[in-house]
């Protein structure tokens, strides 16, 4: 017989959405049970070894139609454990769009601002200073400056960063202020119970009200099901991420899964004569926003961000094989790398089984091509010898003319050799009306009392910037609304 538990509230997920809600509810005195599908791995267990940490911390899904890898953190702390620590406030244009197109007045810039500042403070977002400026980031910055492009060192949520370049393997010094080190301990200090390795399978809804959550307890290594349990509760906040929340809602009998959007991403790799040692330094620390279409920019919707040049990722990005590839890898210390990330227009769907139906539109392919060409231009302006782009059959770009030719040539989707996304949005979006979304602006699911969506699945569209602060601010706002309603009910 399945074990039975009970709580005033259940929060599903411990990432940027779940952990702030859990802390808010627990600090308001609610008996809060927090479910996390992944294992709890502490700072001392972050080894920095690529293969091991990838296997222990990440969830990998595939969007077959786009040939895109989709990643999320699957551990206590969720994707905040494996993100690059970049902090951006939500762009006002995006919030205005959510107000205008979806009727979400509570997300107007002035209304959301207090929660944004609270999240900013809670996770210790701070400017990146010269002591944390890597040669890798400096090359991209130099290129942008020489081209007269707009760019900035990016704020990060760190305290005492040691520049190891391991942000997305789990920070082994505890410098990165993921929710594992911020909101989760706060929730626990306030009495919340966190059950790691516990996956929610279905929310039981009877008579239009939440009654319980059915869960399975999984093996931390193999993820095989060990035990089943049921948690009695009148209130559930779902924050299982875009790869989890829409599917869970559908498995619970709700309509969800539409309108999923990504920030499609790929990398360019530049070789310099001098050593860069791009495997160290903050994994990301500088962003070119010249081609962005938010925060006052009118570009095509592309961000170019410096990113670490570790061996495995670099090996996959360099062309050829055999002796020629080995020769390129012997120059690993000389590579700088940049992430080209676009604000997609493509929308897809996540099914009840988690299958992702998503085919990249031609306009997004154009954005990726423009971004690659721009990143290559920036590196060449900074003195790079050559720049590799992840396009089958392409030759290294060595001159501005090469970049111009590359930008002008048609790019077939099948020619891209690498494409992925870690910023995922939607699938259970907020809207003013049930025919336009899954939940209202409080995150409350239409037609079900006691069920809230508190993560990026509730956001109506992509943000155009790294989204953790936006997700946290929205979760804090929803948590406050849930507490208010519980007290007044």
């Amino acid at each position, binding site marked *: 017989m399945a074990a039975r538990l009970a709580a005033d509230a259940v929060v599903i997920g411990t990432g940027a959405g779940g952990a702030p809600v859990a802390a808010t509810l627990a600090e308001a005195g609610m008996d809060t049970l927090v479910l996390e599908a992944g294992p709890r791995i502490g700072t001392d267990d972050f080894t920095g070894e690529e293969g091991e940490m990838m296997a222990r911390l990440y969830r990998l899904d595939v969007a077959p139609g786009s040939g895109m890898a989709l990643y999320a953190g699957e551990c206590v702390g969720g994707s905040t454990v494996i993100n690059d620590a970049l902090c951006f406030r939500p762009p006002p244009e995006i919030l205005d769009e959510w107000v205008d197109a979806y009727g979400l007045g509570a997300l107007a810039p002035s209304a959301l601002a207090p929660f944004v500042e609270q999240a900013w403070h809670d996770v210790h977002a701070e400017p990146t200073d010269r002591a944390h400026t*890597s040669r890798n980031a400096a090359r991209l910055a130099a290129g942008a400056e020489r081209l007269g492009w707009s760019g900035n060192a990016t704020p990060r949520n760190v305290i005492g960063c040691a*520049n190891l370049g391991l942000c997305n393997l789990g920070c082994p010094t505890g410098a990165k202020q993921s929710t594992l080190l911020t909101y989760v301990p706060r929730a626990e200090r306030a009495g919340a119970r966190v059950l790691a390795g516990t996956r929610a399978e279905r929310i039981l809804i009877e008579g239009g009200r939440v009654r319980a959550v059915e869960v399975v307890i999984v093996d931390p290594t193999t993820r095989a099901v060990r035990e089943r349990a049921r948690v009695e509760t009148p209130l559930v906040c779902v924050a299982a991420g875009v790869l989890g929340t829409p599917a869970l809602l559908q498995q619970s009998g709700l309509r969800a899964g539409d309108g999923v959007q990504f920030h499609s991403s790929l990398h360019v790799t530049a070789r310099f004569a001098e050593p860069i040692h791009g495997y160290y330094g903050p994994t990301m620390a500088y962003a070119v926003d010249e081609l962005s279409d938010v925060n006052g920019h009118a570009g095509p919707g592309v961000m170019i961000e410096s990113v670490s040049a570790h061996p495995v990722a670099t090996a*996959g990005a360099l062309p050829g094989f055999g002796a020629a590839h*080995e020769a390129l890898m*012997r120059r690993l210390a000389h590579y700088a790398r940049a992430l080209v990330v676009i604000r997609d227009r493509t929308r897809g769907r996540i099914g009840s089984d988690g299958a992702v139906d998503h085919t990249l539109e031609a306009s997004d392919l154009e954005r990726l091509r423009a971004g690659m060409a721009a990143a290559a231009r920036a590196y060449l302006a900074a003195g790079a010898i050559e720049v590799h782009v992840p396009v089958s059959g392409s030759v290294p770009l060595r001159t501005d003319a090469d970049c111009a030719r590359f930008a002008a040539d048609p790019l077939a989707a099948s020619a891209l050799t690498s494409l992925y996304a870690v910023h995922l949005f939607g699938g259970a979006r907020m809207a003013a009306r049930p025919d336009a979304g899954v939940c209202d602006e409080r995150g409350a699911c239409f037609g079900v009392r006691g069920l809230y969506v508190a993560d990026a699945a509730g956001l109506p569209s992509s943000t155009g910037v790294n989204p953790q602060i936006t997700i946290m601010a929205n979760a804090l706002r929803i948590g406050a609304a849930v507490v208010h309603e519980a007290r007044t009910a």
Partner: protein
Amino acid sequence: MMAPDAMAPLVRAGAGLERRAFLRLAGALVAAGCVPAGCGGVPSRWQPGPAVRLRVLSPRAYATFSAAAARIVGPSGGAMIEQRVVDVASVADGLLARAPALAGPLGQALAVLEFGVWPLVAKIRPFTGLGPHAQDAVLDDLMRSRWTLKRQLVGGVRSLALLAFYTQPQSRVISGYPGPFGSERIPIGAAMVGAADTS
């Protein structure tokens, strides 16, 4: 770190291969026993050792992958694979066991690489039975092909080989990567603005 993009080329090739009816046919032939899963006729240096416990790959796929990876990573890494200093096929088997969506198409791609013949693959003998130069010629033909299928076929194997090899600390003698926490010769500070050049 193995940033998310480290797996992306493999996923991209795997997803492309998954859509190929031809490869599904190859998978069905393997499953039906029409294509050998054992290592009869395969040089012993590519066969799994007695201690190897495979979860996804067949012994034949293990051997094919080892042989292909040895050519893909280059002469120094290839020697490590051949001398079993690095067991890339076991690493790949573990990776595929955690990514079931990729295991099928990659296994099928290895079957085609081993048993496929001209005009799909430029050879008439099993890949593991070819000499190094002939193996290089096969890989080169696939990588330069105008056919997306052929590029994806070798692209998946290439991505998995590089992933499996460069996650191993032994590969650092080639890449010069000092490891996650720096070294005496290349400390973390060498990567920061203002540091003296250290190559």
